[in-house]
């Protein structure tokens, strides 16, 4: 699997209508359209999401709590025009990065600094933010967009059985035993 598999795209899912978006994982794809399709094939096909986003990983700025301290403060406007940055945080004991209020900023670094300020008020252990991702809202390719070529309807009628429902290994051993018995007979 060489570089021909394309760049990495971060995948986000909306678990139910009206719920915030959370990080689901990542996919490889050569372009935005196939990224959304691959995301759906890997993360959205079973009834776990009502919508998906993909974002080029190269546009996602990530920092852990240990790295927050060394960052420049968010003062000033960075000189450029501001745009909306999405903020995703991993807080408390949670595993998934979840959507936090977005920020306006001129650069990704500034967006990150503002996102950290936003999180600074957290006192409870459950609310403490361990890591933050920021990326420009404009970079999102969403299945919810009205211009999206393919909006993925969830498929609640599709279920899958747990792998434990398929005793393949035990059955194959039994078959082999039977086969070797009949060979010796």
């Amino acid at each position, binding site marked *: 699997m060489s570089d021909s598999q394309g760049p990495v795209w971060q995948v986000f899912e909306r678990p139910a209508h009206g719920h915030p978006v959370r990080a689901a994982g990542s996919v490889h794809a050569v372009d935005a359209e196939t990224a959304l399709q*691959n995301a759906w*094939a890997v993360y959205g096909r079973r009834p776990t999401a009502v919508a998906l986003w993909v974002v080029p990983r190269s546009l996602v700025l990530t920092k852990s709590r240990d790295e927050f301290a060394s960052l420049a403060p968010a003062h000033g406007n960075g000189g450029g025009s501001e745009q909306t940055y999405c903020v995703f945080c991993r807080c408390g004991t949670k595993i998934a990065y979840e959507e936090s209020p977005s920020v306006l900023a001129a650069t990704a670094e500034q967006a990150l600094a503002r996102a950290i300020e936003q999180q600074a008020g957290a006192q409870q252990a459950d609310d403490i933010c361990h890591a933050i991702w920021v990326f420009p809202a404009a970079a999102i390719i969403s299945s919810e967009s009205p211009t999206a070529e393919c909006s993925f309807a969830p498929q609640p009628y599709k279920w899958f059985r747990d792998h434990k429902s398929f*005793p393949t290994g035990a059955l194959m051993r039994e078959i082999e035993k039977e086969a070797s018995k009949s060979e010796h007979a």
Partner: protein
Amino acid sequence: MLDPRHRAALDSKLLGLADDEFILGHRNSEWTGHGPILEEDIAFANLALDELGHGILWYRIVAHLRGEDPETYPDKLVYERAAGEFQNVDVVALPHADWAFSMLRQFLFDAYESVHVPTLLASNYRPIAEAATKIKQEEVYHLYHTRAWVQRLGLGTDESRRRLQTALAQLWAPFQQLFAPGADESLLVDAGITPDLRPVHGKWCDAVVPFLESSGLVVPDAGIVPDVRRPANLERMTALIGELQEVSRIAPGAVW
């Protein structure tokens, strides 16, 4: 209700629909674990699984028609029939040559389903209309996916275009078989049970030819639809079914 001739024609038609889907799904499942990238491996395996599922929907209607149990009869049809009893066309049974071949075949089939399945919604035989409703939903996504791939292979590199063009030359003529009616199919068409396949073929050509051309391919001359549907090559089917039924023959009735 159905007289014996209509019943026999319907039985044969349903088996054809089922076997086309099921054998295509089986062939494409051979790519599982061998896809070009992990994500596409999963996506293509999902498409194959959908086609197997569509086959089972049609097998269940065969069971209904024959007064058999719709839960267990599909297994009997798949695992206990002889290769020569399968009613699928040859093109779905062709072994894959390369990725371009399998992707193009799946695209041509999805395009066929996207025009054929909506006409089945109008069937006055209710089980057919109900199955078509379920299949239609999944085919929308199939076509998005395979269109995107055909476009990228066709407009990608010299090698990807050359491979796709070769696949088109191999698939185009045998694919026309899908639009050939069964021996007594006109009875079903006259009774409003299944659609006339001629306009389906016309719509399919109108959809795929300009698309393939816009994807950098040269489409062979207009395909000629045979007068009557022929079953697949027996030697090919014997090899395919031999592998498909191998485990069920070793352990008949095993529960997985």
